[in-house]
């Protein structure tokens, strides 16, 4: 396991002020509580508190503390997707994503921080319930305006910061205000302390309100701010009059801060609300620059909003707090600009993603760093892409939505989640598509087919791919090439090599005519694969070499790795293991660079298997272990099964026939559980050798034992040469009696006699209340929750009933 930090929490943007006791208590709660929800109005500081709590819990959660931000999501099914994305879990064919996620987390001591659940609270509740039920060590910390309302939840109401009273002004709210004022460049002197106190009270200690007020101290004194905020309460406009007091206070503060903005700043702030995630200056300029704002002004306007704490900035990326974003959305709606802006957002996303797609895949002679940059940029846009697709569906902009899907390689196998792209495509295709051209529909079907192939829905994928080929316009050359390559894959998987050959040839011919290097490489790799299937190894080698050469010319690491892998397979087929390993090893760093974890897992398993056959056992072990870890992390049972097969090979080459049978049996069982058939020839041969060497009975016994083993146990058996211990409950760590004081011992002893608190009190000549306190202390120290448990413990730990002496 790498020692990388096991969390994805952001760095603190500024000092966290106060709430020490809450931090301590909340962290303590997780010793016994599975789910804690921080509840409270927007702006009360739930997210910041949660992040702070979580940061202090990393040591207690060796499998990680994972922040899942939900604010930008607009659809319940995306909750599962987002959790999976954060954890690096990928969809398995034919299985709900949540099942894969719970499987992956089953034995993980990790904490999930679900931030901003309120708008998706029902789905969050279902997901958390499923996780808690299936994964005993997992803990969940949620922030939400509304509780999840599930059985295992402890609701923690987040109060405002402590307010100054008549005695002391050195309290959290004042500290926060002064800290943020100092950050804004002002240091209110002691003479203004009474005004600061008045302001903190007027703002009811609400952290966001205090931050907004402090950001204005360069122009206004605390007294002036307090006066104006007071006036605000009578001027509340946004339907806040009947809201609870804290919500009213916050709204007043936000409205006040907003009204103080220059006109153009107001316009920009409300326009920024269309972004679902964080954004950079370029995106802000593209989407928000329209009258009265010119693109060139945006950088300064953004700077102004950052100064006023209405926009947060972290290393050239900007974002709005969810509370501010909700307010700004409302203002955008009131200004009658919402539709325009969301349309513009969709347009811009489309333009950008199509440009990135061209750069990454299609344009010739683009250096790899530029292609990679485009791929990275497209991944960064994922939250906005989801928002834009939502708008496309809601506003009936099916054409634009589909264009966006098609152009978003970030959602394709290399970077994203196919379940999601298939879902979007199906959703958009179900709308009115009468305005679309046949070419557009065909291209969309090609994308859908691509997604379905990865889900192993071969028949449907083939049908769609055929329809796509029939419908694509003559000029749509790149998509045509892609569909031909997809057909090759589909037909080879279905055992129809002759038809596959046809498509490989057609795809290659089109790509050569149009100078499309990607599809040339892809077509040649297809020809090589067809030749390999037919046992024509020299032809397979020739096509493979040419494919790799074209792939290198293109420069995309994914297609380079794919063609190198093809050459590796050809070398393996002719028994040249050294070359095979070299080819697979060549692909490994390319796949790392491109972040294709599923392909990487497959590649590592191949290297491991071939290394084992070459008697390079250390290397084999290392690669298979790495592949297994990746298979587990991404939740791919198929990947785990593949590693077990590799481990079986390794064990047999090392002379451990028993281990080989166990691992093969565990792989077979796992594959059956996901509805796959094992390659039986190797297994039959292996079992034949096992029967000869170990005898029929022993071989059969090993096989059944292996089938019953968990994949992890079987893998450990080979990787660490570990003998699997019989499953027995681990005896609990005995509690050392010295934990208890002499008096507590005495009382524990009296409990074995079944005495009541009153009777114990009489015996020891102390009050029953004191006895109750002692008993509470004992329970806490021993981790018990009832008196009876203490009595049993004391009976087991004491030789004789204690005497009532000190």
């Amino acid at each position, binding site marked *: 396991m790498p020692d990388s930090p096991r969390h994805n929490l952001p760095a603190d943007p500024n000092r966290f002020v106060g709430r020490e006791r809450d931090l301590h208590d909340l962290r303590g709660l997780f010793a016994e509580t599975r789910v804690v929800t921080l509840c409270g109005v927007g702006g009360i500081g739930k997210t910041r508190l949660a992040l702070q709590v979580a940061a202090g819990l990393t040591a207690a959660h060796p499998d990680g503390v994972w922040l899942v931000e939900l604010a930008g999501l607009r659809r319940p099914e995306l909750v599962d997707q987002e959790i999976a994305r954060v954890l690096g879990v990928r969809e398995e064919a034919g299985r709900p994503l949540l099942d894969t996620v719970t499987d992956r987390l089953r034995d993980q001591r990790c904490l999930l921080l679900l931030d901003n659940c309120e708008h998706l609270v029902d789905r969050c509740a279902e997901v958390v319930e499923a996780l808690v039920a299936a994964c005993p060590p997992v803990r969940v910390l949620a922030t939400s305006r509304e509780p999840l309302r599930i059985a295992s939840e402890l609701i923690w109401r987040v109060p405002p910061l402590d307010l100054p009273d008549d005695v002391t002004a050195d309290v959290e709210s004042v500290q926060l205000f002064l800290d943020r004022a100092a950050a804004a460049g002002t240091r209110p002197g002691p003479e203004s302390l009474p005004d600061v106190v008045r302001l903190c009270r007027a703002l009811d200690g609400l952290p966001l309100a205090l931050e907004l007020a402090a950001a204005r101290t360069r122009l206004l004194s605390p007294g002036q701010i307090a006066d104006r905020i007071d006036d605000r309460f009578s001027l509340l406009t946004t339907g806040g009059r009947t809201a609870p007091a804290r919500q009213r206070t916050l709204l007043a503060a936000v409205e006040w801060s907003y009204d103080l903005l220059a006109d153009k700043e107001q316009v920009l702030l409300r326009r920024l609300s269309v972004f679902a995630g964080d954004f950079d200056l370029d995106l802000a300029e593209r989407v928000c620059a329209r009258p009265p704002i010119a693109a060139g002004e945006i950088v300064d306007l953004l700077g102004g909003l950052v100064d006023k704490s209405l926009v947060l900035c972290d290393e050239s990326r900007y974002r709005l707090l969810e509370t501010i974003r909700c307010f700004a959305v409302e203002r955008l709606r009131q200004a009658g600009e919402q539709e325009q802006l969301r349309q513009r957002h969709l347009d811009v996303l489309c333009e950008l993603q199509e440009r990135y797609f061209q750069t990454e895949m299609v344009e010739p002679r683009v250096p790899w760093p530029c292609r990679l940059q485009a791929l990275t940029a497209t991944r960064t846009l994922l939250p906005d892409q989801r928002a834009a697709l939502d708008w496309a569906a809601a506003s009936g902009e099916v054409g634009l939505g589909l264009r966006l899907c098609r152009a978003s390689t970030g959602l394709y196998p290399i970077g994203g989640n196919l379940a999601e792209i298939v879902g979007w495509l199906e959703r958009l295709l179900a709308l009115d598509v009468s305005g679309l051209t046949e070419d557009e529909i065909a291209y969309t079907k090609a994308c859908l087919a691509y997604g379905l192939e990865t889900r192993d829905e071969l028949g449907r994928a083939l049908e769609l791919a055929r329809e796509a080929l029939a419908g694509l316009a003559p000029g749509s050359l790149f998509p045509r090439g892609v569909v031909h390559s997809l057909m090759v894959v589909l037909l080879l998987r279905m055992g129809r090599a002759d038809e596959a050959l046809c498509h490989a040839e057609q795809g290659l011919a089109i790509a050569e005519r149009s100078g499309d290097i990607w599809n040339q490489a892809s077509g040649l790799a297809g020809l090589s694969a067809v030749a390999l299937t037919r046992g024509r190894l020299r032809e397979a080698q020739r096509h493979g070499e040419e494919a790799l050469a074209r792939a290198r010319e293109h420069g995309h690491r994914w297609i380079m790795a794919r063609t190198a892998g093809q050459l590796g397979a050809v070398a393996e087929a002719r028994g040249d293991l050294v070359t095979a390993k070299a080819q697979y090893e060549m692909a490994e760093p390319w796949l790392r660079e491109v972040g294709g974890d599923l392909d990487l897992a497959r590649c590592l398993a191949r290297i491991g298997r071939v290394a084992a056959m070459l008697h390079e056992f250390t290397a084999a072990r290392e690669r298979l272990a790495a592949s297994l870890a990746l298979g587990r992390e991404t939740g791919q049972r198929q990947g785990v099964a593949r590693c077990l097969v590799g481990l079986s090979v390794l064990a047999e080459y090392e002379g451990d026939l028993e281990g080989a049978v166990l691992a093969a049996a565990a792989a077979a069982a796992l594959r059956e559980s996901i509805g796959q058939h094992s390659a039986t020839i190797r297994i039959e041969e292996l079992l034949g050798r096992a029967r000869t060497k170990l005898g029929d009975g022993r071989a059969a016994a090993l096989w059944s034992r292996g089938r019953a083993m968990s994949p992890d146990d079987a893998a450990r058996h080979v990787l660490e040469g570990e003998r699997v211990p019989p499953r027995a409950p681990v005896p609990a760590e005995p509690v050392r009696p010295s934990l208890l004081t002499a008096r507590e011992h005495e009382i524990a002893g009296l409990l074995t006699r079944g005495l009541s608190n009153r009777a114990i009190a009489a015996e020891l000549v102390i009050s029953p209340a004191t006895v109750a306190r002692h008993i509470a202390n004992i329970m806490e120290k021993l981790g018990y929750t009832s008196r009876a448990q203490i009595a049993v413990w004391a009976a087991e730990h004491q030789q*004789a009933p204690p005497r009532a002496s000190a």
Partner: protein
Amino acid sequence: MPSLTWGGMDERIVMVDSVTGLTLTEEQLDERSATATVQLRRRGVRDGDGVLVCLPAGPDLLVAFVAVTAAGGVIWSLPADLDAGTLRELVRGSRARVMISNVGPAVDAADESRVRVVVGVDDLCAPRPYPV
């Protein structure tokens, strides 16, 4: 090994709920309040902390009082039949971090107060093992 003598000697009744006729024995009181004490501590109650208790008179109230005392807390008692406005005022005026109540208006009053955790007696008295 000494024999355990549960039942029998501590079936002395310490409280009778006049409305329901239900009784609370000394053993029940000891056992339930001990469990509740641990639960209060786990929810962060420390020596000297105020704990709001708003329950109708009856066995639960007695258990809650004993548990808060044993946990080292200070009982801030609230009559369960107060009107919502008064309850709200009292709850908001308190600096309690924990409230023991199943009384609707009291629970609602916690909303804009400094109470972090609201817990019912049933929850407090359910013995829960430590999780895996």
